[in-house]
């Protein structure tokens, strides 16, 4: 058993499962958004903001954003542990990624429910 404290789920299995589940959610969200844009070639501000006024769309978007955060945390943690061997730099980069993801999530909640 190898011990880790900066990966998302503390266990390789949970990281692996979250990575796959979040990938499915992101794929569904991408298909939905691309499909919506293709079906509305003359998209204007009112239609677009109307879409995001619906609670279901806000929940779906927040789910996609949390999925991005989890997916990116696991993925970038893996990249950093592969390539950065100097502990101080690795820890600093991991902290930077996690903080940036936290800011993006809080910011996007404000965008979704703010206006």
């Amino acid at each position, binding site marked *: *058993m*190898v*011990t*880790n404290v900066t*990966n998302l789920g503390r*266990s*390789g*299995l949970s*990281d*692996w*499962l979250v990575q796959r589940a979040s990938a499915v959610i992101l794929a569904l969200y991408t298909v939905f958004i691309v499909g919506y844009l293709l079906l509305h070639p003359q998209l204007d501000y009112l239609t677009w903001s109307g879409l995001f006024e619906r609670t279901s769309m806000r929940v779906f978007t927040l789910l996609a954003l949390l999925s991005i955060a989890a997916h990116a945390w696991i993925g970038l*943690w*893996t990249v950093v*542990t*592969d*390539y950065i061997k100097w502990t101080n730099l690795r820890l600093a980069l991991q902290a930077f990624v996690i903080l940036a993801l936290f800011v993006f999530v809080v910011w996007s909640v404000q965008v979704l429910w703010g206006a």
Partner: protein
Amino acid sequence: MSMLNVSVYRYNPETDDKPYMQDFQVDTHGRDLMVLNVIQLIQEQDPSLAFRRSCREGVCGSDGLNMNGKNGLTCVTAVSEVTKNGKLTLRPLPGLPVIRDLVVDMALFYHQYERIQPYLQTTGPAPAIERLQSPEERDKLDGLYECILCACCSTSCPSFWWNPDKFVGPAGLLQAYRFLADSRDDATSERLAGLDDPFSVFRCRGIMNCVNVCPKGLNPTRAIGKIREMLMSNAT
């Protein structure tokens, strides 16, 4: 005269500052030799060349090398299989420390093998004669027990290059599954508990370099998938 151009990785830590490639010309007399034969012909030209070999029939696993960029056993790889434009480049297995020339230090590889406890562990009393298995239970070990620990797979795996101290590697994981799948072994949950971290199993990204190079035609990626399935059914 049919000459083969061979470029060989040379490094003697006692005399060389750094490794270098040395070119040799080998007369194959028009025959399609095994790469090991070519290395032996080179050694006749330069007796200082160091390499490992033993059984010369793909059983002992001691002559794993990187031939024109692909790992394999030199004794069962014909020159025609790997040569490009009449040129053969020989390097030691990638990712492990070089002791000298084509000889690598396999300690990291063996340490990961040792970690997965490659032996049967039982709790019950020893039977009078032997521990029986049904033919179906025995069939589950096919494709697993044949591994000869040549390290061609693990040293072709980038995840093992970057984390050889934490990632078990394809060879070790194939053997981990060999004992997880064995009906006579009673240590399944302890074995799984030792693998459930982000490195030991899950550093595998499924690129299947291991399957691509295995000289015995085994499939470590499938075994790793089976370990993941066992971890999943154990934890959900």
